[in-house]
């Protein structure tokens, strides 16, 4: 029973996305299947070349890169949001599955939650 965590907030401006990732990492730590879905401005998590040193925050990109290492099953992203924010394939973290059918992703997971 895979738990899907949805991220709809962009990184750096708020902590909501980081807290969503922590949920997914915890599921993985306890060997529970998990997946991530990025929608709306949340897809900005997926852009490469993030350099937040000047803000004094840790890299969201590095934070998310740990996801597949930690055993997160799938990382989905809304294709139209990626297009809107120009998160193109060559500027996107590897391993992201684009979808144009959010409803289908939601229906395929028994437990679906936002972090906040």
């Amino acid at each position, binding site marked *: 029973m895979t*738990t899907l965590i949805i991220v709809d907030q962009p990184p750096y401006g708020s*902590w909501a996305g980081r807290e969503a990732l*922590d*949920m997914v990492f915890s*599921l993985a730590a306890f060997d*529970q299947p998990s997946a991530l879905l990025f929608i709306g401005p949340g897809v900005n998590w997926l852009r490469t070349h993030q350099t937040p040193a000047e803000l004094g925050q840790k890299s969201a990109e590095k934070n998310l890169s740990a996801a597949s290492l930690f055993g997160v099953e799938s990382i989905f992203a809304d294709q139209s949001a990626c297009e809107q924010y120009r998160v193109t394939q060559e500027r996107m973290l590897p391993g992201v599955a684009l979808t144009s059918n959010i409803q289908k992703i939601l229906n395929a997971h028994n*437990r679906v939650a*936002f972090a*906040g």
Partner: protein
Amino acid sequence: MPNSVVYTLVITAAPWVSQAPQTALMFAREVLLAGHHIDRVFLYGEGVHLASSLSTPPSDEVNWSKEWSQFLNQHKIPATVCIASALRRGIIDETEQSRYELAANNLRMPFEIAGLGEWVESNLSSDRVIYFHGAS
């Protein structure tokens, strides 16, 4: 009771900022009235502020932290505050106070600080996990 359902309630937004803790309390009362069971209440993110022992609203306003604490005590429902969310936001129990050599603690009883593992466990042991988020 054949139709009894086991719930976990997750609150992710703070009182006096959002309506989430209020809606969650109304919901929780009806869960028990319907003969169901609340396995655990889990405070995550901004929700951890509900567990502050120092919240002091004006005397003509409801104290949602106190109301929640009374409800939990009365029905002996375990309530967990996510440790990572709590430490960042300055919600501290005696253990964390001494670990980090802080000047005070402010966790309201019967809330307890623990990791997201408790939430993972609730996901497994509960029939329903209901989230109460903020509105903004």
